[in-house]
C-alpha cells in the first residue's frame, strides 16, 4: 500500500504543480470552500466574505511573491460529499495552492482524503472535537482543551458550580467534548448524579421540555450550570426559551462553545445578559489590530452593524500564517509550505501572537465572555498565557497516548508514545 | 328461491355509511343464464349493490353467494373477478395509455400473478380470441389506437369487450348506454342480448327505452331494498314504483 500510495502522492504532486505552474504566471489562486447555500450557509457565508476581504487586503499590500492572489469561490451547498467533489475541483481543475474552508466536522472528514491524495493545503477555521492531525490540514480553530476545559474551570472556580448539565446537539463534536468534560469533571470530584447529559437533533426548535428539565435539575440545592454544545441554528430557539422561562444567568448560567457574535445577532440578548461563551476571540477585544480588522470588515461588507467572530479570526490567523510560510519558503509548493509553516507566528486579534505548532494546531488565548445586552461578549476571564491546541485529548481512553508531530523525522499525526510507533494504538 | 341453484344469491344484505343505510335488507337472486335489469332512482343503492357483489364494500349483515356455494363476503376484488364476475363501471374505465389491443390482452383469462405475467408470452390462441373480441365490439380498425383516443361509446364497448375477455360467468353492467347516441344504444342492446346467451348478466340502467328493448325481468330498487320485481310492464303498473319515480 505504501508504495502505491507514494506513487500516487507523486502523481498528484506533479499534476498540481503542473497546473499550478501554468496558472501561477499571473496569479496565485486561493480556494474558498464554504457553503453558500443550504443549512450551513448561515454560518459559512460570512467566512467566505472574510476570506475575500483578507485576500483583497493582501493584494493591496502587493500580493504574495510578487504575484496577485486570486480567490476561487465554489459552493459545496452544505452537502458533505459535494465538499469532497468541490475540493477536488478546486485543486485539480482550478489549480489552487491552498484552500480555506469547511465548517462542520463531517465536511472536513469528507475532504481529508482529497487533500491527502492531491497533496494540497486546507486551513480549517472552526473549533472542533480534536482527535485528528493530518499532514495537509491546519487547524486554526480551537481544540477542546482550548475552549471547553478552561470554561469549566472558570465556572467551578468563579461561580462555584457543583452540578452540571451537558447539553448538546447529537453529533461528534458535542459527544466528544462532553466525553472529555465528563471525565474531567469526575476527576475533579463531581459525582455521577450531578452530571446530566442531554442530546438533541440538529435544528431542534422546541426546547420547552429540555429547558424545564434543566430548571428541575437546577433545583436540587446546588449551584448548577449548563455547558452547551448546541449547534448554531438550534441556539436561537434555545436561548429564547431560556429567556422566557426566566432562567437568569445569575441562577443557572449557560456556557456555550458554539455561540458567537453571529448567532447572537439573531437574538434580543437583553434577557441573556450574563450567560457565557468560551472562545479564543471576541469582537469586543480591545486592541488596535482588532479595531482595524472590524473597521475593514464592516467597510468591506458595507454594513456598520456587521459583527465579527472567532472563526473569522481563525481565518485571519490561518491566512497570515500561510502568507508568512509562503514568503519563508519562497514558493507555494505544498510540501515546502508544510515544512515552513510550523513555528510561524503571527499576531492574533486579541493582542498576542499565535504560532503554528508541529501538530498543525495553533496556540491561542482562551477567553470567557459574558453576553451583553448589545449582542457582544465581555471578557470576564482569560488564560494568562497561550494554550497549545491538543490534537489528541488526554482525557479519552483511546487517544491519551497519542501525539502528533509533522516535523521530520517523526512526521506522524498519531504517534503512540507507549508503543513508539506511528499509527495509533494498535499493534 | 333456492340458493343452491342460483348464479348469484343475496339475502338480507344491509350496509350503512356513517349511519346512512345505503342498502337495507336487500335480497336478490339471479339464475344461471339469466339477464336481469335493475332500475331505481338516484341513491337507490344500485352502485353500492355492485360494490358489495364485487368485493369493494363489505356488507354489515346478510349473505352473498356465488354459484350457490361461494361466499363472496370473504373475498377481495381480485379473487371475485377470478371466480368469474366481471364488472363494467358507470363511467367507462379503460387503460387510457394502453392500446385497444393491450387492453384486451390484459383482460384475457390467464394466470394473474406477477411472475406469471412477467414471463408471459402471447400465444396464438390468445391472439385469436382478441381478434374475435375486436370483431364483436367493432373496434378491429382501432386495435393500435390508444384507448385514450376512443370516443365515449367506443370506450363503453371496449370495456364490455374487456369484460368478455375475462370469460366471466356473471357480468355486472352499470349504465352501458349512458352518453350514447340512439343508434349506439340500440347496438349496445343487441350486443348485451348476444352476450346474455351464454352468460348471466345484471344490467343497471336509467334509460327505460333501453331496458324495454332488452325485454327481461326488471328489479326496482328503492332506498336500498327491492321495491318491485317482474316484467317492465308489470313494475311500471305498480303504484309505489310510479310514486318513487315521480316523487311524493
Amino acid at each position, binding site marked *: 500500500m505504501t508504495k502505491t500510495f507514494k506513487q500516487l502522492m507523486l502523481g498528484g504532486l506533479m499534476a498540481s504543480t503542473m497546473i499550478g505552474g501554468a496558472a501561477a504566471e499571473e496569479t496565485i489562486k486561493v480556494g474558498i470552500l464554504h457553503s453558500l447555500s443550504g443549512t450551513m450557509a448561515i454560518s459559512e457565508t460570512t467566512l467566505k466574505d472574510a476570506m475575500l476581504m483578507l485576500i483583497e487586503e493582501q493584494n493591496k499590500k502587493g500580493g504574495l511573491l510578487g504575484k496577485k492572489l486570486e480567490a476561487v469561490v465554489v459552493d459545496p451547498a452544505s452537502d458533505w460529499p459535494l465538499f469532497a467533489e468541490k475540493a477536488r475541483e478546486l485543486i485539480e481543475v482550478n489549480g489552487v495552492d491552498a484552500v480555506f474552508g469547511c465548517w462542520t466536522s463531517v465536511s472536513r472528514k469528507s475532504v481529508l482524503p482529497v487533500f491527502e491524495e492531491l497533496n494540497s493545503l486546507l486551513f480549517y477555521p472552526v473549533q472542533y472535537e480534536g482527535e485528528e492531525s493530518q499532514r495537509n490540514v491546519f487547524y486554526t480553530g480551537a481544540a477542546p482543551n482550548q475552549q471547553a476545559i478552561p470554561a469549566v474551570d472558570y465556572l467551578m472556580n468563579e461561580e462555584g458550580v457543583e452540578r452540571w448539565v451537558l447539553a448538546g446537539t447529537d*453529533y461528534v463534536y458535542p459527544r466528544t467534548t462532553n466525553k472529555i468534560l465528563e471525565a474531567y469533571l469526575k476527576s475533579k470530584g463531581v459525582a455521577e448524579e450531578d452530571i446530566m447529559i442531554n442530546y438533541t437533533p440538529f435544528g431542534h426548535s422546541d426546547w420547552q421540555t429540555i429547558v424545564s428539565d434543566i430548571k428541575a435539575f437546577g433545583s436540587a440545592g446546588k449551584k448548577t450550570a449548563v455547558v452547551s454544545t448546541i449547534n448554531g441554528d438550534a441556539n436561537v430557539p434555545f436561548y429564547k426559551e431560556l429567556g422566557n422561562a426566566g432562567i437568569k444567568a445569575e441562577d443557572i448560567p449557560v456556557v456555550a462553545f458554539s455561540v458567537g457574535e453571529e448567532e447572537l445577532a439573531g437574538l434580543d440578548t437583553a434577557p441573556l445578559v450574563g450567560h457565557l461563551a468560551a472562545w479564543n476571540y471576541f469582537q469586543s477585544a480591545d486592541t488596535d489590530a482588532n479595531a482595524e480588522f472590524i473597521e475593514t470588515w464592516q467597510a468591506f461588507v458595507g454594513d456598520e452593524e456587521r459583527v465579527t467572530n472567532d472563526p473569522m479570526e481563525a481565518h485571519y490567523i490561518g491566512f497570515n500564517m500561510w502568507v508568512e510560510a509562503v514568503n519563508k519558503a519562497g514558493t507555494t509548493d505544498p510540501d515546502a509550505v508544510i515544512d515552513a509553516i510550523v513555528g510561524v507566528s503571527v499576531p492574533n486579534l486579541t493582542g498576542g501572537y499565535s504560532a503554528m505548532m508541529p501538530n498543525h494546531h495553533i496556540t491561542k488565548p482562551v477567553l470567557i465572555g459574558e453576553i451583553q445586552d448589545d449582542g457582544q461578549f465581555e471578557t470576564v476571564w482569560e488564560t494568562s498565557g497561550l494554550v497549545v491546541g491538543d490534537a489528541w485529548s488526554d482525557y479519552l481512553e483511546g487517544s491519551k497516548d*497519542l501525539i502528533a508531530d509533522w516535523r521530520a523525522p517523526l512526521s506522524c499525526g498519531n504517534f503512540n508514545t507507549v508503543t513508539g510507533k506511528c*499509527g495509533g494504538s494498535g499493534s | 328461491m333456492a340458493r343452491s341453484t342460483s348464479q348469484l344469491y343475496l339475502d338480507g344484505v344491509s350496509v350503512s355509511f356513517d349511519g346512512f343505510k345505503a342498502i337495507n335488507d336487500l335480497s336478490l337472486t339471479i339464475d344461471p343464464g339469466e339477464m336481469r335489469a335493475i332500475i331505481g332512482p338516484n341513491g337507490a343503492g344500485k352502485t353500492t349493490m355492485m360494490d358489495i357483489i364485487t368485493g369493494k364494500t363489505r356488507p354489515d349483515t346478510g349473505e352473498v353467494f356465488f354459484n350457490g356455494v361461494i361466499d363472496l363476503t370473504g373475498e377481495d376484488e381480485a379473487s371475485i373477478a377470478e371466480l368469474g364476475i366481471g364488472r363494467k363501471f358507470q363511467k367507462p374505465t*379503460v387503460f387510457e395509455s*394502453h392500446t385497444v389491443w393491450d387492453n384486451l390482452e390484459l383482460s384475457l383469462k390467464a394466470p394473474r400473478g406477477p411472475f406469471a405475467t412477467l414471463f*408471459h408470452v402471447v400465444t396464438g390462441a390468445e391472439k385469436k380470441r382478441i381478434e374475435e373480441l375486436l370483431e364483436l365490439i367493432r373496434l378491429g380498425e*382501432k386495435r393500435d389506437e*390508444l384507448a*385514450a383516443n376512443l370516443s365515449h361509446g367506443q370506450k363503453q364497448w371496449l370495456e364490455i369487450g374487456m369484460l368478455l375477455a375475462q370469460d366471466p360467468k356473471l357480468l355486472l353492467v352499470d349504465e352501458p348506454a349512458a352518453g350514447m347516441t340512439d343508434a349506439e344504444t340500440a347496438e349496445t342492446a343487441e350486443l348485451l342480448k348476444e352476450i346474455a346467451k351464454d352468460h348471466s348478466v345484471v344490467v343497471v340502467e336509467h334509460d327505460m327505452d333501453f331496458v324495454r328493448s332488452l325485454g327481461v325481468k326488471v328489479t326496482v330498487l328503492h332506498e336500498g331494498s327491492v321495491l318491485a320485481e317482474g316484467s317492465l310492464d308489470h313494475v311500471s303498473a305498480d303504484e309505489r314504483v310510479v310514486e318513487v319515480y315521480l316523487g311524493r
Partner: protein
Amino acid sequence: MMTSFLFRAMDARAGIFLALLTAVILLVPAGNLLVPEDSPFHVPTYTVALMGKYLTYALLALSVDLVWGFCGILSLGHAAFFALGGYAMGMYLMRQIGSRGVYGDPILPDFMVFLNWDALPWFWYGFDMFWFAALMVVLVPGALAFIFGWFAFRSRVTGVYLSIITQALTYALLLAFFRNDMGFGGNNGLTDFKDILGFDIQANTTRAALFAASGIALGLCYFICRAITRSKLGKVLVAVRDAESRTRFLGYRVEHYKLFVWTISAMMAGIAGALYVPQVGIINPGEFAPANSIEVVIWVAVGGRGTLVGAVLGAVLVNFAKTWFTAVLPDVWLFALGGLFVVVTLFLPKGIVGTVSQGWTALKQRKVSASAESGSGTPPTAPPQSPAAPANLAGPGKGKPLSSEPQPAE
C-alpha cells in the same frame, strides 16, 4: 420463457442507449488511464469521479422511474434505500481499514474507539467479507421495502398519502442514523476509506474500475427495467397506474404487483448507493434527507417520467447543471437551478425525452394519418406514444378536474 423475456428488452431505443453507455464506460476510463495528461483528450480524475457519481445517480433515478413512471407510486423516500445500500458498502469499507485507522484498532472503526465502544455491535458482523456486504447492499433495502410495501400496499395507501409516509420513513431513518448511539458513526457517518477488494480506493485505476462498474450496473438495471416494463407485467403496472380499481376488478392483485416492483426498485437504489459511496468517499445520514428524495423525483420529471432513458438523462443533466452552476455562479446558482425546474415544468411537461419522442411520433403520425384520413371521426387529440408515457400528461392543463391520475369514479 426467459429468452423471450430478455429478448423483449432489446429494441432500437434500448440498443442505442446501451451502445452509448458502453462507449462511455470504455472511453472515459481509457481517456483517464491511457491518454497522457497533456493530451487534450485526457480525462482528468476529477471528471471520472464526477461522472461516476452521475452514473450512480442515474441508476437511482432509474429505480424511481420504475415505480413512479410505470406504476404511479410517487416515492419521496427512495434516498432511504440508496443510503442503506451505501451504508452497507460503507461498513464493508470501514472494516477494510483495519488497523490503519488513526487509533490503529484492528477491529473497531475509529468512531467507535473515539466514543469508547468496547466491542463491535452485532450488526457489524460479516461486513468484513465483500460477498456478505454485497448481499446486504441488495437485501437490506429490499427487505425494508418489502416490509414497508407489504403493509402499505395491503392497506391500500395510495397517492399523496403513500408519498408522505415514504417521506416519513426516510426522515425517521435520517434521525435514527444521526444518533451516535445507533453505531453508524452519527452525523460524521463513515469515511476515510482505504481499500476496496484490496485495491487502493484513491488509485486512478480503482476509480476507473468503479466508474466502469457503475456504468455496467446502470446498463444491467436499465436492461432489467426495460424487460420488466415491456412484459405483460409492465402493462399491468401501467394499468395500475392509470386505473387501479379497474385492474383489481380484472382480477389482478394490485398489491402484489406494487410490492414486486417496489422491492426491485429499492434493490436497485441500494446498488446505486453502494457504488456511490466508494466514489465520493463518504456516507452519512445526510443522504437520507427528504430533500434528496425529492430531488431524485425532479431528475426523473426533468428527463421524462415513464421513459427509462429520460430518467437517466434527467439525472445526468440536472446534476451536471448543479455542478456547473455551483462553480460558475456560486452565489446565485439556486436561481438558475430553481428557474430550470420551473421552466421545464411549464414548457416541457413530459420532460425532455417525453417531449422529444412526442414530437417524433407526432411527425410520424402526421404521415400516417395523411394516408389514412377518415374513419373514426375522432382525430387523435394526443398522439400515441410509448405505452409507458402517462396519458394524463397529454391533455391541456386547464379546465380538467383536479384529480390527476385518471381514476375510475366507481
